[in-house]
């Protein structure tokens, strides 16, 4: 009757199969350049999962996600250069810091909705962009900001993932955990509360849902995923550049989550692939990577006009129709 927490749907099986492929095959066959590209794409997939779930489950638009990745990355680098704690502890702290940033962002969300909320989160992203451009990212220097001229101090990767191949596997594993965290929430009380909030806040309150708690919770989880993604990106490169975390990148990531399909894991993977793999592919072919913006625009138009649930939604519907047709044929055969 009610869906079991551990019930695996057909889409879930496909996701697990893809995760196994990403964990086992991609690191084994990719070259050095592509290992870096896929690791970066995995980090952005985790961040995109945060905005996608906020949009799909609560109908809230957050345009700060890449900025929060920057905060996570900043904390990760700062901790790495200041202390000699294990990578995992730094990663958890980075996630917790951005989770708290998410709670702060949730304050306007309690009063604002739709376009106004999106604008407030965009302004927060703009503020972070200025901070990153002004103070840069820690690279082993002295003082609070930890910035020095010259080459950056070494970054300590996880003990388990010293090579680029192992680090990609490590990143994929964390991304899978992030996706499972969202799915577990969706199947438990928070998911039910979010679905009702999305339907109508009045109905949610009438059902005893604490709107303040659950909206703040959602922003916190999205922030956590963004921060962990930023921490993993810092671990991949060993240093970060402020140009990666511009406000426009947050808008782009959200738009691509809509193009991919915010309701589905595949949509998030498509978003991250378009965001990171496509420009690298164009570069590899000797084509200007800015062409990808034209492709993104066409994808967005496609989503707005014909695919409200994104490309993943269309694929999902296609399989759904096929399953129904097969069931119909079987039923007719039984007759």
């Amino acid at each position: 009757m009610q869906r079991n927490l551990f019930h695996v749907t057909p889409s879930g099986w496909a996701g697990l199969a893809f995760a196994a492929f990403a964990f086992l095959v991609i690191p084994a066959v990719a070259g050095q350049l592509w290992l870096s590209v896929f690791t970066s794409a995995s980090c952005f997939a985790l961040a995109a999962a945060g905005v996608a779930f906020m949009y799909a489950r609560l109908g809230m638009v957050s345009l700060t996600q890449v900025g929060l990745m920057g905060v996570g990355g900043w904390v990760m680098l700062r901790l790495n250069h200041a202390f000699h704690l294990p990578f995992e502890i730094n990663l958890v702290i980075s996630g917790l810091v951005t989770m708290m940033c998410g709670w702060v962002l949730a304050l306007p969300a309690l009063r604002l909705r739709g376009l106004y909320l999106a604008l407030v989160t965009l302004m927060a992203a703009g503020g972070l962009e200025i901070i990153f451009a002004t103070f840069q990212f820690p690279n082993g220097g002295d003082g609070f900001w930890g910035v020095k001229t010259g080459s950056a101090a070494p970054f300590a990767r996880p003990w388990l993932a010293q090579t680029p191949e192992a680090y990609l596997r490590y990143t994929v594993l964390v991304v899978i955990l992030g996706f499972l965290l969202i799915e577990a929430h969706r199947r438990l009380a928070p998911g039910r509360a979010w679905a009702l909030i999305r339907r109508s806040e009045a109905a949610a309150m009438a059902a005893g849902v604490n709107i303040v708690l659950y909206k703040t919770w959602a922003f916190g989880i999205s922030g956590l995923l963004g921060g962990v993604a930023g921490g993993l990106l810092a671990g991949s490169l060993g240093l970060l550049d402020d140009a990666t975390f511009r406000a426009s990148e947050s808008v782009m990531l959200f738009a691509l989550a809509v193009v991919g399909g915010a309701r589905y894991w595949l949509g998030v993977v498509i978003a991250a692939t378009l965001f990171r793999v496509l420009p690298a592919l164009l570069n590899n072919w000797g084509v200007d990577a800015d062409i990808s913006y034209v492709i993104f625009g066409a994808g967005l138009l496609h989503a707005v006009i014909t695919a409200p649930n994104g490309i993943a939604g269309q694929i999902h519907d296609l399989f759904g129709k096929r399953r129904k047709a097969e069931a119909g044929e079987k039923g007719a055969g039984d007759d």
Partner: protein
Amino acid sequence: MIEIGNVTVRFGGVVALSGVSASFAQPVSGIIGPNGAGKTTLMNVISGFVTAESGEIRKDGQNLLGLSPYRRAHWGLRRSFQKEEIANDLSVFDNVLVQIDHARQPASKRHAEVERMLEYVGMADRAGRLGRDLNKFERRLTDIAKCMVGNPKLIMFDEPGGGLSIEETQRLGDLILGIHDQTGAQTLVIDHDVELISRICSDTLVLDFGRRIAFGEVHAVLADPKVKAAYLGTEEVVE
């Protein structure tokens, strides 16, 4: 016993409710009145969505106006809306379960209660169906089950019969009549369907332009000339 004491609500210069008082003691009571009479506003005051300028609302000694809307739901207040607010991406079961997610009970007990109420409204066989796949009556039935879980003390239905067929309205009335036996809760029903109100309600409050124009035993109230005038208007003879 629900006691509504001298409730006044203003929206700017408009007086939506003007010193409305009533004491409902029967298991099922009604609130009727023409469009714009203030029925839904009164329900919104009881739910906490609209703040009353003055007055009080008590049920079994508890002043509800001091609680936030979601705390009123935790206390035992339930309400449905004119449009059934069923989440499309949740199953029927989950749409009902969300009402008692906050309850400090083992999951098995909460699930058993949801199953019992879905059985009562006749939706047990469709418990796994998604909200988006339900027709209007099934959505209304799910809404009723949702209002009945979690030991409710007061259930309010806002035009539950809107858009339903005669047979469906009949079934709806039977279900509402059974709520008190099933849960012990008192029920308030707002509807334009006077036939439904007269069948299921023992007493009723009549509002017009935010004022109480009648209150008492339902058939006596419906026979009141003031109530007839509010619904049908008065004859004006021009010579």
